[in-house]
C-alpha cells in the first residue's frame, strides 16, 4: 500500500466515522419533528405545569397497567368512581354516592350526569359496566381480584350501575370505586381483546387532562379537557400538563431548582429534603402514607411460630431510634397492623411493644431458651432478615434491628438483596423475617384479607399464616355491612394480630412533595406516593400564581 493510499485511508476513516455517527444519530433523533404540542407558557395565554417523573409510561391501557408512575398520567385521563381525599377518606368522583341493597349483596353507584369524554360523548353507567366486565373477562390489572365476588353487573339507567355479589363484602364499593379506571366503551370496544390493546395514540378521556403526545424517554404532553365538572370553573385553570422523565431523582431535584419543572411527582427523599430549605420559591407539602414499614415473621420457621419469640423480637426493635435516625423524625410509630391514617379504626387499647432488650431476654429465658456456649446469643435463635436493598430506609432498619436484637441475645443476619431476588424469595417463602414496606392499602379490610387469610388471595401473606381463628375473624368482618359493627370487628382483629405479634409494625412514613410555589398554587395533596400531588382532582384545582 502506497503512502498516498494510506493518507486517503486516513481521511476516509475520519470522514466515515464522523458521517456515520452524525447521520445515523441525527436521522433517528428526529429533532422534534411532528412534535407540535410544545408551545410553552404565557404569551398566548397558555399555562403549562411541568411535572417530573422517574420512568416512562410502560402501558397506556389503564385497565392493565400496574405501574405507579403510569397511573399518574392515566388517572388524569380516565375517571374513577371514587377518589381518596386529603384525610385518606373516600370521596365522590364520577359517582355522586354509593350504597348497598339486598343485605349487602348488591352494591349501587349513582353517577354524576355531567362528565364528558373529550370526543363529546357523555360518561354513562354503560362505560362503568363495560370497564368492569372487560377487567373480569381478561383478568386485567389488580382490579380483577377486587371483582372476585361479582356475579353480574347491571346499568339500570344512564347514571345507575349495580354490582350483584355472590356474598356481601363490606369494602367492595370502596375498593372497586377507588381502583377501577372507567374507559370509554365506544372507543375501547373497537379494540377487541383488551389484554392486547396498547392504547398508545388518539386518546379519549374524561379526566381533567388527556394525552396529546408521548415522546418516549422525554416527555408526555397532556391537553386540558374543556369539560371537567370537578374543576372550579368547569375546566382546569392549567391549559397543559407536561410530564418530563428524570430517572435519577437527584437530577429531578436539580431540574426543579433550575425551573425546568414545577413539581416533582416523586416524593423528595427524607435525607435530601433539607437541601430545599434555602430556596424560597420551593414549597414542601407533607402527606402520610397508605402503607407502612414492618417486620413480618415466617410462621413456617419452628422458632418464629412461637408467640414468645415473636414478642421478644418485637421488644428488640428500637422503633423510636429508627424513626429518629433513618427518617429524620419524619414518621409516625405504629402499634397494631392498621395504619393510624385510618382514624376511625384507631385502637386505643393497643400500645407498641416497648423497646426492652432485657425484658425480651427474660421472656426468652422463661420460654426455656439458653445460651449454652456463652457466646451472648440464645442457642437456636438465629434468623435471616430479608429485604430489598434498593429501599435505603429499610436496609438501614435491618442494620439497626440486627444491632438491637443482639442486645436481646437474638442473632440476626442481614439478607438484603436486589429487588427482584427479594420478591422471588418472599414469593417462595424463603426467608425467616421479611423487612419491607407495604405500598398502598386503601382500606383495612383488604389489607387484613391479603395479609392474613390462609388462602393468601393477594399473594402477600408473608407470615404464611394458616390460622382457622384468623380466617374466621376476617371472613366474619368481611361480610358485615353495618359500619359500627364492622369497625369493632376490625379493631378486634387488630388486637389479635398485635397480641400474637405476627408482625412488628414499625412506622408510617411521611412523604414530602416539592413544587415551585412562585409559579403555581392550589394543589390538593393526598396520602401516599401513589397519589401525592398529582391526582386528577389535585391537578384540576391548580392555578398559576398572580
Amino acid at each position, binding site marked *: 500500500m502506497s503512502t498516498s493510499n494510506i493518507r486517503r485511508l486516513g481521511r476516509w476513516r475520519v470522514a466515515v466515522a464522523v458521517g456515520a455517527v452524525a447521520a445515523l444519530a441525527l436521522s433517528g433523533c428526529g429533532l*422534534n419533528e411532528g412534535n407540535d404540542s410544545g408551545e410553552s407558557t404565557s404569551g398566548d395565554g397558555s399555562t403549562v405545569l411541568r411535572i417530573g417523573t422517574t420512568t416512562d409510561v410502560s402501558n397506556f391501557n389503564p385497565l392493565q397497567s400496574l405501574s405507579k408512575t403510569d397511573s399518574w398520567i392515566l388517572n388524569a385521563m380516565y375517571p374513577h368512581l371514587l377518589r381518596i381525599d386529603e384525610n385518606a377518606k373516600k370521596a365522590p368522583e364520577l359517582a355522586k354516592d354509593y350504597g348497598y341493597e339486598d343485605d349487602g349483596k348488591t352494591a349501587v353507584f349513582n353517577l354524576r350526569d355531567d362528565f364528558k369524554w373529550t370526543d363529546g360523548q357523555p360518561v354513562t353507567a354503560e362505560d362503568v359496566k363495560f370497564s368492569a366486565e372487560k377487567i373480569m373477562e381478561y383478568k386485567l390489572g389488580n382490579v380483577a381480584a377486587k371483582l372476585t365476588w361479582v356475579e353480574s353487573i347491571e346499568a339500570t339507567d344512564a347514571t345507575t350501575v349495580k354490582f350483584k355479589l355472590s356474598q356481601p363484602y363490606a369494602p367492595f364499593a370502596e375498593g372497586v370505586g377507588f381502583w377501577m379506571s372507567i374507559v370509554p366503551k365506544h372507543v375501547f370496544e373497537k379494540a377487541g381483546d383488551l389484554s392486547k390493546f396498547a392504547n398508545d395514540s388518539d386518546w379519549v378521556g374524561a379526566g381533567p387532562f388527556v394525552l396529546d403526545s408521548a415522546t418516549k424517554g422525554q416527555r408526555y404532553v397532556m391537553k386540558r379537557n374543556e369539560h371537567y365538572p370537578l374543576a372550579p370553573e368547569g375546566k382546569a385553570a392549567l391549559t397543559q400538563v407536561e410530564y418530563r422523565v428524570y430517572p435519577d431523582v437527584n437530577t429531578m431535584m436539580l431540574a426543579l431548582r433550575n425551573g425546568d419543572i414545577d413539581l416533582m411527582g416523586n416524593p423528595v427523599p427524607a435525607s435530601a429534603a433539607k437541601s430545599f430549605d434555602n430556596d424560597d420559591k420551593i414549597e414542601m407539602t407533607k402527606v402520610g402514607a397508605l402503607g407502612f414499614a414492618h417486620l413480618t415473621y415466617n410462621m413456617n420457621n419452628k422458632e418464629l411460630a412461637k408467640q414468645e419469640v415473636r414478642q421478644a423480637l418485637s421488644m428488640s426493635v428500637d422503633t423510636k431510634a429508627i424513626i429518629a435516625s433513618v427518617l429524620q423524625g419524619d414518621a409516625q410509630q405504629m402499634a397494631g397492623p392498621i395504619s393510624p391514617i385510618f382514624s376511625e379504626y384507631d385502637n386505643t387499647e393497643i400500645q407498641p411493644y416497648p423497646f426492652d432488650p432485657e425484658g425480651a431476654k427474660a421472656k426468652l429465658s422463661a420460654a426455656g431458651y439458653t445460651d449454652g456456649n456463652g457466646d451472648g446469643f440464645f442457642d437456636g435463635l438465629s434468623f435471616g432478615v430479608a429485604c430489598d436493598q434498593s429501599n435505603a430506609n429499610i436496609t438501614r432498619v435491618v442494620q439497626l434491628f440486627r444491632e438491637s436484637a443482639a442486645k436481646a441475645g437474638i442473632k440476626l443476619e442481614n439478607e438484603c438483596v436486589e429487588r427482584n*431476588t427479594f420478591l422471588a424469595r418472599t414469593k417462595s417463602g424463603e426467608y425467616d423475617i421479611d423487612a419491607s414496606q407495604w405500598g398502598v392499602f386503601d382500606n383495612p379490610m383488604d389489607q387484613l384479607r391479603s395479609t392474613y387469610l390462609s388462602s393468601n388471595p*393477594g399473594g402477600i401473606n408473608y407470615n404464611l399464616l394458616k390460622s382457622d381463628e384468623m380466617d374466621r375473624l376476617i371472613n366474619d368482618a368481611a361480610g358485615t355491612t353495618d359500619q359500627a359493627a364492622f369497625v369493632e370487628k376490625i379493631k378486634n382483629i387488630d388486637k389479635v394480630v398485635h397480641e400474637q405479634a405476627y408482625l412488628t409494625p414499625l412506622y408510617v412514613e411521611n412523604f414530602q412533595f416539592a413544587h415551585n410555589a412562585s409559579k403555581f398554587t392550589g394543589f390538593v395533596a393526598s396520602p401516599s406516593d401513589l397519589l401525592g400531588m398529582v391526582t386528577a382532582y389535585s391537578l384540576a384545582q391548580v392555578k398559576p400564581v398572580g
Partner: protein
Amino acid sequence: MARFVLSRAVKAVLTVWIAITATFFLLRLLPGDPTTLMVEGDMTPEMQAALLKTYGLDRPLWEQYVSYLRELTQGNFGISFRQIQPVTDILVDRLPWTLLLAGTAFLVTIAIGIPIGVYAAVHRGRWPDKILQAAGIGGHALFVPSVAMLLLVYLGARLGWFPIGGAIDPDTRGLAAYASLAHHLVLPVASLVLVQLGPYALTLRTNMIEVLGEDYIRAARARGLSTRRRVWKHGLRNAILPALTLMGLQLGTLVGGAVLTETVFAYPGVGRLIFEAVGQRDYPVLQGAFIMLAVTVVVANTLTDLLYAVLNPRIRL
C-alpha cells in the same frame, strides 16, 4: 485478504450467536420473573399463571430458546412484556440517541487523546508528561455517575451553563433544535470523555515513546526530517495501531458508561432503556438491547481488525 475478511466475519457471527445465547439464558437465571414485581398488587396465582402463558414463559426453556432464534432470523425481536410494543420499534426510537452520545464521546476522546498522548511522549519525563500520567491513572478511578452528577451540579445547576438533563428542548425547531441538541450533549459527552481519556492517552503515549526510539525514526532524523514530520507522520501512524485496538475494546466500556450517564442525564438512549427493563425483568427488551449492543461492539471490533490489517499488512499473514 478475502480469506482474512471471511475468517473475521465468521468469528463475528459466532460471537454474536454466543452473546444471544448467553443473554437468553443468563436473564432467565436471574431470580424472579416478569410477574414477580406484580406480586405486590392483588394478583392471584391464576392471574400470574395466565400472564406467564401470555409471555410464553410457561414453556420449557429450550423451546423458548429455539422459538426465539427462529423469530430472530426473521428480524423479529419479540414484543415487550411491559410496553406491549414490538422491541424493534422501541430500540429504533432509542438507538440514535445512544449512537449520538457514545459516537460523539468516541470521536472527542480520539481528537483530544491523540494530541495529549503525542505531546506527553515527545516531552517524556517533563511536567506535561507527569501531569498526564497522574491524571490518566486518576481517570481510571473515576466513576461515571459521580462525574456526571458533579458536572450537572456545578456546570448545570450552579453556573447555569448547561441544561439539567434531557436530550433536547422539545419546543425548539429547525436550527435552534440542533443548537439545543448540541447544548444538551456537552455534559453527558464530557463525563464519558473524562473517564475514557486517561487510558487512551496513556496507551498512545507508551506506544509513541516506543516508536520514537525505533531505528527508522532515527534514520528519518538523520535524513533531516523535521520533528513535526517525524512525530506526526512517521511516529503516530505506527503508534496508533495498538491504541486503535484499545478503542475498539473500549467501545464496550463506552456503552456500559452510557447506561449510567443516560440515567443521570435523563438521556433517552438504549442505556436508560436497559436500566428500566432490568427492574421490570422485561426479557424481550433486554435481549433486544443486549443483542444490538453486542452487534455494535462486534462490528466495531471487526472493522478495527480489518482496518488494522489494511494499515499493517503483516497481520494478514
